[in-house]
Each structure stands twice: as C-alpha cells, then as structure tokens.
C-alpha cells in the first residue's frame, strides 16, 4: 500500500490547529513515515492536484472561502474538518449573533464595503465532511488517532459523551468544588478534560454533546449564580450556531 497523500488547508481561524501539528515534534518523523504531506501552505511551498485526505482548518466566512472549499472537496477522497472553527464555526461564529452591518461598520467604519463578509459557517454547511476533529485547539492525540485510523482504513471513534467523563477518569478536582462553574457536563469530550485538569473551567470548545439537555444546562448555570441570559451567553461561546441554546425553555428556579 502506498502512503496516503495528505494535505492541510486553512480558512478563517487563528491557525492554532495548524500550529499544533507543527508541535508534534516528537512524532513528526514517524508521521512522515506513515503519510506523504503534499500541501501545507503554512509550512511548505508545494501544492498538489489531488489528496487522499484533506484536513480543513477554519470556518467559512467569505465568498472566496466557499469557492476554495468546493474545489478542495472535489479533489479530496476523504475530508476531515479540524478544530472548532471548522466543525462548529468556532468563536468566529459569535459574530453571527450581531447584525452584519453593525459588525462591518464597527471595525472598518465607512470603508466597510472594501471587505465583504458573510455569516460564519462550519465546513459541513457547504460540503460533505467525512470526519470531525473538535477542539480549540484540536488535540494532537486525537488528530493522530484519526490519522492512524484512516491509514488503517477504519472509522475512528468519535466521542459523544461529556467532558465530565474524562475529567472523572483522570480524577481531577472538580472545579465546581472550588466554587467555579463549568460547561463540562454538557460539552463533548475528547480533550482528556485538559481545562479542568489545569484548574480552569470547561468553555465547551468542542460543542455540546448531541441530544444535550440545554434547558438543564441553563438551569445548572443558574444554580451557580448566573442569570439566564448570562448562562446562554456562556453556552454560546463555541456553540452560537446551536439554535436550541436560545430556544430551550428553562424551568429551573
């Protein structure tokens, strides 16, 4: 079997996920044994026509982005979206919560027409996505897991349980015990609960678990002293495209 040809592309994002791959120092050489990197603008000049696997970082937010993503999809056998921006719209999508005009004008004033922008969307809003690697930034072990699975020709496991599960497996002190709040109970795991492990609350960077009890989550935050509006804002940091967050009715006292 010849080595899979893989490529990386970046859209609207902080490029932290790209950088995270360059931070694979210890594994980089073994990785190069496993695959051929044929395109990676942030690190190399080469380009290619087709790819076995295309990894997409960043969200789609301009007409140019849309054209590019269609083009990449056409040439890629497998397409993986990488990181919260690509999977969920990420923090970028918070801008959708405000009227587009206000946003443009706020930054560029009367020059706003120079730089067209559209509502921020995840990659899956435009093209078929085969696998998703969440996280802000994506976790390198998970990236390697998906890559190895693809090399072996099997579906990678993608977790759909709460961060609390991993947090408990690590026996981290629960930040709730320290009087903080946490989105871990409704946020998707896969990060090995790094934030609580480092004493910080979970911001829900991987989005919510599917089938999440959002009303319950709002109630949970209220229990920790937040207003209902503040609670929804907290849940929206990474999941602003999740309409249920504004809709779910919370009957919690």
């Amino acid at each position, binding site marked *: 079997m010849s080595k899979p040809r893989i490529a990386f592309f970046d859209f609207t994002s902080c490029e932290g996920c790209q*950088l995270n791959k360059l931070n694979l120092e210890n594994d980089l050489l073994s990785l190069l044994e496993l695959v051929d990197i044929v395109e990676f603008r942030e690190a190399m000049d080469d380009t290619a026509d087709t790819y076995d696997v295309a990894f997409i970082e960043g969200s789609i937010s301009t007409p140019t982005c849309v054209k590019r993503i269609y083009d990449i999809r056409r040439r890629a056998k497998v397409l993986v979206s990488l990181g919260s921006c690509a999977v969920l719209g990420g923090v970028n999508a918070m*801008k959708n919560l405000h009227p587009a005009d206000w946003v443009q004008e706020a930054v560029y004033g009367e020059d706003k027409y120079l730089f067209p922008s559209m509502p921020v969307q995840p990659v899956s809003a435009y093209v078929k996505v085969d696998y998703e690697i969440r996280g802000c930034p994506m976790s390198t072990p998970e990236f390697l897991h998906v890559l190895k699975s693809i090399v072996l020709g099997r579906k990678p496991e993608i977790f759909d349980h709460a961060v609390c599960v991993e947090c408990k497996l690590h026996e981290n002190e629960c930040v709730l015990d320290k009087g903080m709040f946490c989105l871990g109970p409704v946020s998707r795991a896969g990060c090995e609960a790094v934030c609580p492990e480092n004493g*910080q609350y979970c911001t829900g960077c991987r989005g919510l678990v599917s089938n999440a009890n959002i009303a319950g989550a709002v109630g949970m935050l209220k229990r920790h002293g937040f207003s209902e509006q503040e609670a929804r804002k907290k849940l929206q940091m990474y999941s602003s495209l999740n309409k249920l967050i504004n809709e779910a009715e919370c009957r919690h006292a």
Partner: protein
Amino acid sequence: MRKDLNIDVHHLTRVEGHGNIVVNMKNGVLQKAELDIVEAPRFFEAMLKGRNFMEVAIITSRICGICSLGHQIASLKATEKALGLEVSGQTKILRRILTDGATFQSNTLHALFLAAPDFLEVGSVFPLVNTHKDVVLAALRLKRLANDIGDVISGRAIHPIRCVPGGFTMLPGEKELKVLQERLKTEGMTDIRFIVDVIASLADKIPSFNRETEYISLTSEEEYALYDGVICSSDTGTYPVEKYLEITNEFVVAHSSSKHARFNRSSYMVGALARFNNNHQQLHPFAGEVAKKLGLSAPCFNPYMNTVAQLVEVAHCIENSIMLMDRLLSDGIRFEKPNQTPAQYGRGIAATEVPRGILFHDYTYNRQGNIVKANCIIPTGQNLENIDDDMKKLVPEIIDESKEEITHKLEMLVRSYDPCISCSVHMLDVEFIEE
C-alpha cells in the same frame, strides 16, 4: 534595464495567514509594490461585546494561535489595570518565563522551519529531514523544549489554560520546573550553539539590502523588554503605554483587510530587529556572542536580518528563563489563589512584546465587569506599511535580476518579517453602546 514587471504571488506560503504579493511596473515606473492582505476578517469586537472579564483572555487568545500567549498576557494585563487587580511577584515571574518560552518557540519556528528553507533553497523543512537530519532534529528538540515551557507553566502552549485574571489557576511543581530548567541548561544550550554554527555558515545567503526606518518596541530599565515596559521609538524616545494611539495612528488601505500604521515617518518597523536595535545592550552575554557570530550589530537597517535577530533572542530567552527559574526555585513556589475581586471598573491599557513586535490591548469595563469598549493593535498590522515601503525601495534595486529571483527575494522579505496575518485582521476598535 527592465521596464515592465508583474508579480503576483497568490497566498504566500510559509507565513501565518493569507497574503498576496503584488508588484506592478510599467515603462520603468513602479505603480504598485504591496502586500495584499486577503485573510477573512474575523470581527473579534463582536465576540467580545458584553463578555465578562473572566472570559476576555480566553477569547482574545483565539485571535492567533501562534501569538496566543502574547494575546493572553496583554489581555490579562489590560483587564487587571482596568479592574485594579494586583498580581503577585510570583505571577509576574511566571508570566515572564512564559513570555520567554513563547518568544523562544515562535522565533525558532519561524527562523528554522519557515525561513531557513529559503537559505537552503528548498520549499519546506520536510526535504531537509533527509539532507540535514541532525539540524532538523536539533531544531525539533528546541521547539519541543520551548513548547514544554508553555506546557509546564500554563498547561498548554497554544491557547494556554492556566493564565487567568489575577494569577494562575494552577502552578507548576518544583520538581517539574527543576527538570525543565536542567533541560534548558543542557539540551537547550547545546542545540542552540549547534544551530547558530549552522546558520553562521549560511550568512552569505542573506540578501544585502538596507533601508533605515523608525524602530518601535517596548523598553525597560530592568531588562531586555518583552513582558513589560514603555514604548520606545528609535527616532523620538520613550512614551508611556497609555499614549499608544498617538504612536500607531491606524488607517485603512484598500489592499488590506488589516489596518496599517505610521508614526514619525511614513512607516515604522516592530519585531525582533526593532527590539534588538533599541535594547541590544540588555541582552544576556551569550545572546550577545550569538549576535556577533551571526554578524548582527546595532543599528542594523537590513530587514532580512530580522530572522537573525530572532535567533539572538532565542539564545537570550533560554538564558533569561533559566535565570528566572532560579529565582522561583530559590524562593519556593507558593500556592496563591488568583486575585479576581475587582477594586474598580474602567479603562485599562497594556502592551507586551510578542514575537512579531509590540502588541496593545485596551479595554473599558462596565460595573458588571463586562466589556464596553475594546481595542487591540497587532504588530503585523504595524509592519505592513513598512513592508510596502521596503518593497518600493527593493524592487528598483534588483530590477535587473530574473523575475524568479525578484519574486524569491520579495517572498523572503515578507517572510523575514514573520508576518502573522490572521492576527492582523482580527483587530478590535469599537465602542459599544451600553445596554
């Protein structure tokens, strides 16, 4: 002599973010020589609007993955000033070490992985794995070591976790810190020595081009300023950080979704070379030796030498963090709860040096501790006008070389600034109407 030239480098590689180089000469007249910033703007102000002070650094960190630590530090310092949150000496030392680590890692990444292939005439670092394995391995080790500083102290090098307003959510163990320090002393010093020797042998690959400009950085009486200081212009002297708007004078140009800046001249430069020019006397001795070995002496007006200045800083940061760790370890690391009870509300302005230059964050908070006004000025934005000016001087000087050679030199020029484009288009500058 060539009369016409058209260069259009679409999505310049080996830089962070999306930019195009456009040069256009007609009948011997240079019509255009500019770096077009085509990155999609991200509108961070919309993300910050109404956000609580506890979340602001988490969000601004996402402006840029490469400079995430720098953004967090600037953000936390601005928030702390606005809310009157005092931080301890221990916190300041830890943040300084983190700043050293981030500068060390980013400069290494740029100099050795993104810029170095130019000197060795290849398109990326990957072919070097076969031709220069020992160099690549040493570079990888250095980068890992730099990232480990971030991992050990802030939980994660990209989008650090433990840095919060008022301090740290968790502190490194003394054992871990000792191990890390030992590695810096042995592994780190050995590898940087080796790398410097290699780069010194390639010195003739650096184009000779000079254009004197204004150099702006932080400066401090205590140390080679990275974490903190006052603004310093090589032309006009020092200014308090609060006066930053008078220095940056941002303006919008049509070819860039990032704003440009100018102060005393038509443009100014920030970054490693600016810091070196302004503060070189405060480098640690070993860094001074490295500068000498690599042929860098102040003042240096060759922007291509920015990459060399970055390596000098790597040496400095290794030495500096070893020294700071000594201080921490001799005092003993004490558990402290972060101070997060605001003493006031209002405006806070802070500056810090990130690898690419001086970074400003400016916030105003309401009485709920939520953001009402935010502004954030990023180094690459400040460099853009200077890059355009460099190109305008450079193109006529090399106009008789082949088009490929010109293109290559222009690419190298832009790259040597280590531009961080995604950063530059995420600026905030907005006043919110209070709800």
